[in-house]
């Protein structure tokens, strides 16, 4: 299309960059309020136990203790930490209590204390006497579904929380596989990952008993829905709860669930003083909801001899941990998102999820799609091998095209530049030459490819309402009041660029206000790669509305018709006679300080619920070397090529992709959330045990953008938030096969697994 743009498309720094590089940025962990108390949660040491009695008398009597709360202090109310519950029509099962009556995982909150300092709080915890009736527990899916296994919940017979459920089947399985000349299948396992942002979980709460208002400083990514959940839990009206979001040093989906907010609020209410609960790293890794529950996938793909895929069948098994959280929606997204990529006419996918006695599962970048992408993209390579087709060629030929079926029935793909992505990536990595390399010696090289199409917002499955409010100051600058849930992803900057572009203002003229539910209008927040796309549409619409108002007022002042006017360079001027004009600032000031009876403050709002399905597509390429004596994988080069539609801020988009590459490599090779199968304890409770890539572990890698504007996105933009993380595991697995001829079906792909596979192959 080739839009002529002044602000959109520029790599401008984050709005909050100055705060962050000077150390002045306030996070919940760095904040203190006057009179603040330290809160601590007493957690169950047992994976499954009934709470018979709790004696808090000694704790309460300890000098310096200001509140001790247990289940007895508040009405027993079912809730869930998964605030996305409100985003789904009908919600998902609420199966948690503020404090457990039956502990269902090691770490389940039993009580909490607030004291004047951490030392006394810890002492008080030790003085709480809890009588537990320890119950038998199960830690694996296999054990949980066995005959006679201990029942974790009354409502889930056989511990099955989601009985076998199919999601959006199409076509006819039997026919589809009948038509296939080749069929490939396999059973795959993936480890749940931990989001592992640098900031530990933390929240601060303050209750004003005079106004009955509860203020919570939270790391949530979804503040308005968090507000409703907290209001629900404490039987308060939503309007009495205020969520403030300091900068968050964590996210990637971790903020789609509450962590210690509920107990923190309980303490604040009881203590009549602000309370801060801050986890240390071990508590954070052990109690944050991890990546979603899918841990095993059995998939089968059929294709004709010329490669045409005919059928895909998959059975997913999820290990939910102790609570429902977003188990069902995670299941839905995982399966549905697997539909987008290839033109497969017959698809049947089913999922079953089981409760076990360990920490529950939440969301991590690439929600559910990570696991299905890994399996699909490695099986596709097996198809290619069987039919003798080049993996890049296969993907180019058989991916869905514009107008094709999206992830959700009725949705249609609005744009697709995957061919370009594959072409660029293949050339950059040297695909043809490297595929033809001789594989000999101890260290063998291989190349691999993977691709996917994701989404920009989870409409129509989830409520994707976004609101934007623009308020113009007398200097012509604009307060852009939106709720992206700022986790540093650069959304506020990009949204500012959109507003500035429409209004002919500079980036510096847009002031984002985003951190307070008292100020911002209801918006989902940030997840499902929705920030830029959904909020961008709202901001663009609001800016266009504002533009019209500006033009009307300016037309009045200049005594011309609005249609004659243009807006640019912070001015409003007659398009045919640019000298004749007025500054935006003058119009804005005149609006307020208008002594001729025409005064107002120019504001504009827009409310958007996107309906289109605008998938960002992506190709990932890897060149690597396998040491056949040690099984170690050394990545020589990684390339991501991403179909962004339009990069509102290329630097921000690249940053998202780069970060995704780091997490994707971690997922593929190093990160293993190890939960003891003996006692259900989280073993990987620190960065010494759970290894995320350090700078030394990152290979030479590039994130490249393809820009072919999407017809539905703001300035043609699609999403990038999650996309960076999907393709490393499957491309690496494919490259390992290319190098040494073994297929690893378990993630993380460790040297131990590679050596076992080589041994089994007789090498």
């Amino acid at each position, binding site marked *: 299309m080739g839009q002529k743009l002044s602000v959109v498309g520029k*790599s401008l*720094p*984050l709005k*909050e*960059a*100055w*705060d*962050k*590089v*000077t*150390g*002045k*940025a*306030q*996070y919940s*962990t*760095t904040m*203190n309020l006057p009179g603040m108390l330290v809160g601590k949660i007493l957690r169950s040491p047992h994976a499954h136990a009934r709470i018979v009695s709790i004696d808090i008398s000694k704790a309460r009597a300890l000098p310096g203790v200001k509140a001790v709360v247990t289940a007895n202090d508040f009405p027993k109310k079912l809730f869930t930490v998964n605030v996305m519950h409100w985003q789904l029509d009908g919600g998902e099962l609420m199966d948690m209590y503020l404090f457990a009556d039956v502990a269902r995982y090691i770490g389940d909150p039993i009580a909490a204390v607030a004291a004047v300092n951490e030392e006394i709080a810890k002492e008080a915890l030790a003085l709480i006497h809890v009588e537990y009736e320890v119950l038998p527990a199960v830690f694996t899916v296999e054990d949980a579904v066995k005959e006679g296994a201990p029942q974790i919940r009354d409502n889930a017979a056989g511990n099955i929380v989601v009985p076998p459920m199919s999601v959006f089947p199409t076509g006819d399985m039997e026919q589809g596989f009948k038509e296939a000349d080749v069929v490939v299948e396999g059973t795959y396992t993936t480890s749940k990952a931990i*989001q*592992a*942002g*640098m*900031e*530990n979980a933390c929240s601060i709460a303050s209750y004003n008993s005079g106004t009955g208002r509860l203020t919570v400083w939270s790391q949530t990514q979804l503040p308005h829905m968090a507000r409703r959940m907290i209001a629900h839990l404490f039987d308060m009206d939503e309007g009495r709860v205020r969520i403030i979001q300091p*900068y*968050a*040093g*964590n*996210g*990637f989906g971790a903020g789609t669930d509450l962590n210690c907010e509920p107990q923190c609020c309980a303490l604040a209410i009881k203590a009549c003083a602000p309370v801060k609960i801050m986890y*240390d*790293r071990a508590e954070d890794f052990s109690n944050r909801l991890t990546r979603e529950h899918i841990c095993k996938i059995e998939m089968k793909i059929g294709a004709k001899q010329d490669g045409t895929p005919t059928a895909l069948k998959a059975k997913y098994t999820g290990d939910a941990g102790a609570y429902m959280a977003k188990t069902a929606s995670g299941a839905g997204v995982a399966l549905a998102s697997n539909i987008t990529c290839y033109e497969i006419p017959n698809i049947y996918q089913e999922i079953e999820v089981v409760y076990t006695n360990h920490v529950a599962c939440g969301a991590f970048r690439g929600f559910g799609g990570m696991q299905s992408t890994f399996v699909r993209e490695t099986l596709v390579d097996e198809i290619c091998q069987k039919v003798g087709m080049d993996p890049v060629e296969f993907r180019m030929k058989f991916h869905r095209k514009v107008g094709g079926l999206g992830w959700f029935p009725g949705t249609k793909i609005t744009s697709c530049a995957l061919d370009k992505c594959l072409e660029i990536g293949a050339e950059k990595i040297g695909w043809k030459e490297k595929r033809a390399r001789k594989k000999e010696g101890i260290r063998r090289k291989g190349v691999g490819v993977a691709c996917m199409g994701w989404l920009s917002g989870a409409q129509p499955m989830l409520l994707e309402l976004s609101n934007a409010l623009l308020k113009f100051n007398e200097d012509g600058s604009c307060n852009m009041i939106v709720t992206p849930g700022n*986790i*540093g*992803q*650069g959304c506020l900057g990009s949204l500012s660029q959109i507003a500035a572009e429409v209004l002919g203002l500079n980036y510096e003229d847009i002031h984002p206000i985003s951190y307070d539910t008292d100020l911002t209008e209801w918006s989902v927040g940030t997840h499902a790669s929705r920030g830029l796309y959904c909020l961008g549409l709202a901001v663009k619409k609001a800016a266009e509305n504002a533009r019209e108002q500006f033009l009307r007022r300016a037309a009045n002042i200049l005594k011309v018709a609005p249609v004659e006017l243009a807006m640019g360079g912070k001015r409003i001027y007659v398009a045919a006679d640019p000298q004749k004009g007025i500054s935006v600032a003058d119009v804005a000031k005149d609006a307020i300080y208008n002594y001729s009876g025409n005064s107002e403050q120019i504001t504009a709002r827009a409310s958007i619920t996107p309906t289109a399905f605008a998938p960002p597509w992506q190709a990932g390429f890897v060149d690597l070397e396998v040491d056949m004596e040690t099984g170690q994988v050394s990545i020589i080069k990684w390339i991501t090529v991403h179909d962004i539609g339009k990069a509102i801020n290329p*630097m*921000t988009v*690249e*940053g998202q*992709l*780069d*970060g*995704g*590459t*780091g*997490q994707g490599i971690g997922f593929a090779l190093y990160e293993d959330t190890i939960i003891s199968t003996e006692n259900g304890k989280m073993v990987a409770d*620190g*960065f*010494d045990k759970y290894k*995320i890539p*350090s*700078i*030394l572990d*990152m290979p030479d*890698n590039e*994130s490249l953008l393809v820009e072919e504007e999407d017809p539905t996105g703001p300035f043609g933009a699609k999403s990038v938030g999650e996309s*960076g993380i999907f393709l490393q595991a499957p491309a690496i697995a494919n490259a390992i096969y290319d190098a040494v001829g073994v297929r690893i079906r378990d993630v993380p792909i460790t040297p131990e697994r590679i050596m076992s596979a080589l041994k089994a192959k007789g090498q």
Partner: protein
Amino acid sequence: MKKELATFIVNGVSHDVVITSNMTLVELLRDELNLTGARESCGDGDCGCCTVLIDGKPTLACLTLAVTVKRKNILTIEGLAEGENLHPLQKSFVEHGALQCGYCTPGMILSAKFLLDENPNPKREEVKKGLGGNLCRCTGYNKIIKAVLSVGGGGK
């Protein structure tokens, strides 16, 4: 618990603070001096978020007892800029998009400062080696490396 009045020189300013032996430096900075750029994240030496420079050397404040650094010159991120003028590394991080959530950024910048103080024109591999003790979960490190190389002169 024995209390002691001790002097700490932080960012060139002298502070007299009552401390106990069990106070770590990061706790002193955060609770007593309101300097929250250095942050305790992993608490055991893996992440580098609490990095400060003590007598010019990169030190993990969460594993340092405050009582052991009395009267030493402590530089935190808050002491790097001169008034409104950002240090070249800070400027470079901003311009190159070398931060997202920003939680690791103070420690990362101070480690980079130490690197450049010892080696003003590091090569790419030397930058990586110099930042090996600072974890970042957001950026994948590419733009961090770019930002540091840009201040250093590119390693040529």
